[in-house]
């Protein structure tokens, strides 16, 4: 019950912020909040993997990039030259490929974002399985370095491959029409709609993960974090559950990548960079590791501040400092540490 109240309050806050910013004529805030929402989707997914199941991933930006680049490549590909092929004509008949024109008026036949979304999902799961099976056998530093290595490889591939636009990335990604009238992307006019699309996704994601935590599978994940030896002694098949949560969190990241790429109309290699992965880890750490709400709040806060440029040229340094500060002084996360401090002070006052 408690979780539904929290979720409803989140929804209320989301609506109040939108109304407030519209009334004050400051809708431009919503852009950063929309982007922050998508980044938060990655963070809460990683929180599940890192905080609850105890498996660090220093390569989560890679999954974001896999989603983003898959949709970018597929939806910007021109199938005009292949209209004679049977698959393409079948796609057109099913409405999964749409003719149009590009900026210069050249005829364009592009795939529907729905296909791209499905493709991104499949590719993400396949890569998560291929990487996850060997990597999740590792522990500690080895796991950290292996996931970091995976992240760097993906980064290098995006940077060095012509298909992915090398250092320029891919731009001109069309908007993602979910139902007519509601689309991810597409400029200033769609600001409010996009804000709600992003936040509905975050709310749904949170609900799914909050449910998961208190379920049988969630308990198995938490017990793996607690003690692998004891977990297998009560019949939990550890590799299976680790892989499961790895795939789930990869899918969250990939979905965020797909949506943000459509929202921004493009994606660049920096999204796959090591620093991005480290940011997600920092956010989960500040949020208190095994704390979905803390992660969400910190993610929105930090991403929003960062996107609005409050950190200036110290952007990365801020995240570095946060990582060290939190891990040195408040390894349980900032919210919990403050709460215990306050509670202790209240107790002292009561005694007096």
């Amino acid at each position: 019950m408690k979780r539904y109240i929290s979720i409803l309050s989140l929804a209320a806050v989301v609506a109040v912020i939108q109304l407030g910013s519209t009334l004050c004529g400051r809708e431009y805030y919503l852009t950063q909040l929309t982007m922050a929402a998508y980044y938060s989707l990655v963070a809460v997914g990683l929180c599940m993997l890192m905080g609850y199941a105890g498996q660090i991933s220093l390569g989560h930006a890679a999954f974001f990039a896999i989603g983003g680049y898959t949709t970018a490549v597929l939806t910007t590909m021109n199938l005009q030259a292949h209209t004679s092929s049977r698959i393409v004509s079948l796609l057109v008949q099913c409405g999964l490929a749409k003719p149009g024109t590009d900026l210069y008026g050249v005829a364009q036949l592009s795939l529907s974002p729905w296909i791209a979304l499905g493709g991104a999902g499949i590719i993400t799961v396949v890569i998560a399985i291929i990487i996850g099976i060997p990597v999740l056998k590792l522990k500690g530093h080895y796991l950290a370095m292996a996931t970091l290595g995976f992240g760097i490889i993906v980064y290098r591939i995006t940077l060095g491959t012509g298909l992915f636009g090398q250092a320029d990335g891919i731009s001109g990604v069309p908007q993602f029409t979910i139902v007519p009238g509601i689309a991810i992307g597409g400029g200033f006019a769609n600001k409010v709609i996009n804000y709600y699309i992003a936040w509905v996704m975050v709310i749904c994601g949170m609900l799914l993960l909050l449910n998961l935590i208190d379920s049988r599978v969630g308990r198995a994940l938490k017990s793996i974090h607690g003690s692998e030896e004891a977990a297998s002694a009560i019949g939990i098949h550890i590799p299976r559950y680790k892989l499961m949560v790895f795939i789930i969190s990869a899918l969250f990241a990939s979905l965020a990548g797909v949506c943000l790429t459509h929202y921004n109309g493009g994606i660049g290699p920096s999204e796959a960079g090591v620093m991005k992965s480290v940011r997600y880890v920092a956010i989960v750490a500040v949020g208190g590791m095994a704390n979905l709400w803390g992660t969400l709040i910190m993610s929105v806060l930090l991403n929003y501040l960062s996107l609005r440029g409050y950190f200036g040229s110290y952007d990365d340094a801020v995240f570095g400092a946060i990582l060290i500060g939190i891990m040195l002084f408040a390894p349980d996360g900032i919210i919990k540490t403050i709460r215990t401090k306050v509670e202790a002070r209240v107790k002292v006052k009561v005694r007096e």
Partner: protein
Amino acid sequence: MLEQTVQYILSGLTIGSIYAIAAIGYNIIYNATGIINFAQGEFIMVGAMTAITLSAFLPLPLAILFAVIITALLGALIEICCIRWLDRPSVLRMIIITIGLSILIREAALHIWDEKVRSLRFFTGNEVSSVSVFGAHISPQVLWVLGICALIVVLLNVFFKYTLTGRSIRACSSDKMAASLCGINTRNMVTLSFMLSGAIGALAGCVISPITQTQYDCGTHLAIKGFAVAVFGGLGNSMAAVAAGLIVGLLETFSITVMPLAYTDAISIAILLLVLFFRPSGLFGNREAGRLKEF
């Protein structure tokens, strides 16, 4: 044909020996504390950058000397501020702290030395001077790199085997409790290992800088490659790291002949992943011992 092969081999060995030094830096700290210092690559960068700055108004040997000392002090500072007073921190916590440190050092370097690519001047001669080895023309700096890296390895061996301090550090790494019962101040030994690690990193950074040049963010890729080499040789085993470093350096150099330059970084990382998957104890490590080292 032979000339070109020799050229490749020498350049592979050069870059490989830097990886080896980075890996040894990891090993020194790992052996003393069980921590992988993700900021190891930054030591190399800071060493080179400091030497470059100092060399503007100091003779080269002095500039390098001070750079090494400053980086060693940086190592000590890190240990004292962020490691020493933690009570049995979890591995995850240590990973995150050292990652944070590497970011902070890198960002500080960005603000001190900006984004410009710099390089230390050549120890002997200049960019165009060369010596001939088996018909291949190579920069004398390559000989400096190989020579100094070899010297570091030899000196470290002597230090750890024959000096009291070196032996004390080794005692700490094999059994902290027993070492402190013998009257060794284990905490100071840990600080010392950070200093040592910083110092050799800085020295390696200085000798390689004229060839590969230095930028504020060059530490990251050296760190991951150094780690790849350390794991490849078997974590904690410094002599194996030297062999592994040279192998990785050679593989990387020869890979340029068959694949685009942009992917060469992926080579050592791919090696890292393969070794981690199939032989986590390393190429030269003992399989059983590797399994025991699950932490």
